[in-house]
């Protein structure tokens, strides 16, 4: 179900979980499009040689996943801000699950605040943050 207007939203409402494609081919396509190529994003062995646990999902790609999740839920949302804290690396080729939940609604301005959490299969938080978006009345 998608959201069209502010009155459709309740405090505590959960957005549909989004499992983004963190595979190397998808990351490579993203890096090419963003002009941000780097072996640490596209090659596990090269990333390990840099001291990383494996190839990383680029941070800006993670933010793109978060924005995509919000727009899947509310296609007309005007996203004003996505603020993330990276607690642990988000690794390529490892399943990631993005959860979102509405934690504030300003009826006057139409702004909603959404808690965002990216977890792995073990339920451990890799990235968390908040987004602010305007939803039309």
């Amino acid at each position, binding site marked *: 179900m998608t959201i069209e207007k502010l009155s459709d939203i309740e405090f*505590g409402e959960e957005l549909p979980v989004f499992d983004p494609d963190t595979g190397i081919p998808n990351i490579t396509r993203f890096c090419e499009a963003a002009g941000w190529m780097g072996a640490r994003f596209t090659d596990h062995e090269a990333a390990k040689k840099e001291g990383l646990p494996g190839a990383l999902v680029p941070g800006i790609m993670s933010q793109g996943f978060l924005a995509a999740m919000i727009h899947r839920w509310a296609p007309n949302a005007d996203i004003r801000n996505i603020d993330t804290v990276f607690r642990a690396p988000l690794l390529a080729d490892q399943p990631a699950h993005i959860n979102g939940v509405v934690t504030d609604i300003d009826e006057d301005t139409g702004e909603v605040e959404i808690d965002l959490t990216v977890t792995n299969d*073990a339920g451990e*938080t890799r990235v968390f943050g908040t987004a602010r978006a305007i939803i039309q009345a």
Partner: protein
Amino acid sequence: MILDLHAHSIKSDDGRAKVSNYCQWIRTKNIPIDGFVLTEHRQFDFESDYSELAAKNELVILKGAEVETEYGHVLVFGVTEALTGEFDFSNTHLKLADVIAACEKHGAVAVPCHPGRPRVGMHAHIDTYGIPEGVRIVETYNGGSRDNEDEIAQTMAEANGYLGIGGSDAHIVSHIGRCATRFNSDITSEEQLVAALKAEEFEAVTFREQNT
């Protein structure tokens, strides 16, 4: 009574939660805690008064701090103006022994938090600095723990005879109450919290499965 002893609000540099939204979340989602302690990073928040908000939501909202030492991060409960004069809360290179001594002098309690976490947890520094003197309590359930961090904390606590507390380490609204501490007595003030910790009548609890 169950209190989440480790939470951050927008007063912390990496905190994203308004205290009022914590309250709304606890009540809307029926989170099984009676209140929480705001332990802002590297500071004590003297200016905020949450008494009205607490009363309105029938929750206990207390304040503490989270400071940084060579053994990692440490929660401080029972902060007073005099205690903040003993050491610089914003210093990221405090000595744990100094923090513990200052807390003892001013009737506060210092509790190493997420001790099983690499870099910012006490366990990671024991090989270098040895087992610290004066630690009685550590955080054995932390809502932000990954991998086997809580297990490391619990094993360390058992080996050294430490008592354990729980806290969510919430930085966003929906993480409040993931872990907490159950007390045998009612607590409505920082003084009562310190007394209950010193009485050693509490246990760490986790609600992570229910809340995630």
